[in-house]
Structure formats: structure tokens, C-alpha cells
């Protein structure tokens, strides 16, 4: 008997089986297993003769089909216990085929949905970016602002320093020291005023170290600085 199928490449053994079952116009619950197995193997041989590589799954299915075929040829074993139900050897295969078929149908429904919905386009959200930009005080800008403010404060300090001429100060402040100082204040207080921090410094060097510490903390993203209005106090907060 010759089978009459076009040379089709099947994705997997289930697809091939469906094709054969449809071709034979038989009920999936009552597959003529001998006939379908022969056609299945014939197809594999044809592919082999054409030097087409077949995935190992095709061979596994061939073995399964042959096993079912042989089971169906065997005379039914006499019932000797109740556990051994009279099961159809095709049952497991049919169950799998039906499950696969359900998903196959479903995927067609999904495909339709995809064809429609992938044409619904969202908007480019650059607008949100622009707005966010407008109120995010970028670190670069705030640093310029800080430097400006620092310079004004230093000028004020200079006059203050002159009045205290003659005093001896501790002169060995480090940035790291100032960093832990600022962080220790912010560990208990929610906010800290930039002005107060600098005005309370005893020497110019200490003020510079404090300022550098603030810049470093901004860079490390430990703090952020903000100013609500043009002439408002600059507030330092923990991030």
C-alpha cells in the first residue's frame, strides 16, 4: 500500500500523526493503529531516503506506535486481578494527541488576538522624561549652585576670620572625618542646613573640607541637596 502525502516537513511526531489521521478520515478515539503505524514508518523511510535529518522524537514515536500495535495484536490476558483494568493500549497516546490538539487550536486563537493587538501602539514616553527632567535637580546643576553658595559664604567667613585674628585652630581636618560628621548628624536629624554647616566651621580649611565632604556624599548618593525657592535655605537630606 502506498501513501499519498506531499513531502511536508512536520514540526514533530504529533503533527505527522495528525496529518495521517486526518488523511485516513478516522476517529481519533479509534485509530486503526496498524494502518497508521505503517504509514508513519513509510514516511520516516521516505525522509531517510531523501537524506533529511529527522529529530529523535520521530523515532521514539515510531517505537511507541509499534509497541501499541503489538499489544493490540496480543490476545487479551485473562483477568486475574482487579487492578489490571482492561485498558486500550492506545489510550495514553490518544490523550496526548488530544491535549496537543487543544493547544494547537488555542494557539490559533492567540494568533488572531496577536494580529489585532500588536497593532495597538503605545506612545513614546519622552514627554514624561522631559517633565521629570524639569523637576529633577540634576547633580551637576546643584553642584554649581553649591559652589556659588559656598563662595558667598567664604567671603562672609573671611571678614569673620579677620575679626578673630590671632587665634590658633586645629588645622588637620580630613574629608573622611567630615563625611562621618555629616552622616552622624543626619543619622538623628532629618535635615541639615548647608549654611549652618559652613558657618559653624572654625577655619577656612575646615569649611573647605566640609564642602568637599558634601560633594563627595552627593557623588556617593548618600545625600541630596535641595532648595525650594530661589533664596531659600539649601537643605541637606539623607538619601
Amino acid at each position, binding site marked *: 500500500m502506498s501513501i499519498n502525502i506531499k513531502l511536508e516537513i512536520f*514540526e514533530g*511526531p504529533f503533527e505527522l500523526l495528525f496529518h495521517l489521521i486526518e488523511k485516513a478520515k478516522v476517529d481519533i478515539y479509534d485509530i486503526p493503529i496498524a494502518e497508521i503505524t505503517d504509514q508513519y514508518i513509510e514516511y520516516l523511510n521516505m525522509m531517510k531516503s531523501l537524506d533529511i535529518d529527522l529529530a529523535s522524537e520521530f523515532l521514539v514515536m515510531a517505537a511507541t506506535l509499534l509497541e501499541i500495535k503489538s499489544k493490540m495484536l496480543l490476545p487479551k490476558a485473562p483477568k486475574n486481578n482487579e487492578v489490571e483494568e482492561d485498558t486500550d493500549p492506545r489510550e495514553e497516546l490518544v490523550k496526548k494527541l488530544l491535549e496537543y490538539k487543544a493547544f494547537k487550536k488555542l494557539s490559533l486563537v*492567540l*494568533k488572531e488576538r496577536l494580529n489585532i493587538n500588536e497593532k*495597538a501602539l*503605545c506612545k513614546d514616553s519622552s514627554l*514624561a522624561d522631559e517633565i521629570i527632567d524639569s523637576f529633577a535637580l540634576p547633580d551637576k546643576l546643584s553642584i554649581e549652585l553649591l559652589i556659588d553658595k559656598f563662595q558667598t559664604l567664604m567671603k562672609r567667613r573671611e571678614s569673620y576670620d579677620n575679626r578673630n585674628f590671632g587665634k590658633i585652630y586645629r588645622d588637620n581636618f580630613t574629608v573622611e572625618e567630615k563625611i562621618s560628621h555629616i552622616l552622624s548628624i543626619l543619622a538623628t536629624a532629618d535635615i541639615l542646613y548647608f549654611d549652618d554647616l559652613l558657618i559653624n566651621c572654625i577655619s577656612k580649611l575646615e569649611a573647605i573640607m566640609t564642602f568637599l565632604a558634601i560633594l563627595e556624599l552627593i557623588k556617593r548618593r548618600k545625600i541630596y541637596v535641595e532648595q525650594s525657592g530661589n533664596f531659600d535655605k539649601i537643605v541637606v537630606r539623607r538619601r
Partner: protein
Amino acid sequence: MDIKKIKATIECLLFVAGDPVSLKDLSSVLEIDQVTLKKIINQLKDDYEDGTRGIKLVEINGSYQLCSKPEFYDFVEKLLKPKAKTGLSQASLETLSIIAYKQPITKSAIDLIRGVKSDACITRLLEKNVIKEVGRMDGPGRPILYGTTDTFLRLFGLKSINELPPLKDFE
């Protein structure tokens, strides 16, 4: 705030955001409780169904987003030539539908249902961001478990995974 103004504000917010905005965020910005707000959003959704509107309001996993109506896609394509097509093969769609229904699921469980190896399909679906790794199964080898993403919901026009038609209907 009257209902007209609330609707206008929601439209404005969703327009500006571009991305999906959660009911929670809308509720706290508008200072309207989620239940009331949800009713208004549903009304607004209907408003967009009017024939003079070219956009619509979609819900994805409790978030809302404006998007263009698909029926005008041909014009959009003519004007902007966007790259909208997902280009999933039948095999990939099959794999995707198995994952959608059986998630979380391992590769070998998918292979078993399809009767064929699904490695290439899974890679492709991951690339398209329609599925993701959702964890690992206990047991030998701790195989990866796959599930669907919000992108999946959006592309297939689903509010949530529960909106998928029951598998029974296809048996």
C-alpha cells in the same frame, strides 16, 4: 472635583506617562478611593469606544495605559513605518499557549506536550519578552520554570491571565 474633570485628569496623566500607570498611583494622585476610581475609569474606557476616538484605554494587570486603536494601524504604518510585528512562528505560538495555561512550567514538560524539543521556541519567546523565568522547580537539576509577562498580556489584549479562554473549549 466633578466626574468630567476627573476623566480629563486621568486622560492627561495616562497621556503624559505613556507607560502603564497603576490604579494605586492614580488613586493616590487624584485622592479618590480605588473602588470609585475604577468605576470612573471603566466609564472612560467606554467613552473611548466612540467612533471619533483614535485611542483607547487598556487595562493590564491592574494598570492602565493609553494606546492607539489597532484598526487605524494601516495609516500609522503609512506615516511612521513602526516595527510592530512580533513575528512569532506557529511553533512558538504553540509553545507560548502551553506556557500561558500551564505556568509555571518546565521546558521538559512543554516538550512532552508538544512531542518535540522546544529550546529554540523558548529562546525566541524570552527574546521577545513574552515569557520569563519565574523560578526553579524543586528536585533534581532544579529546572527553570517559565511563565508569561505583562508584555504577553499587552500583545494579546488580555487584562490578566485569567482572561484566557478556558482550555476545555478547545478539546
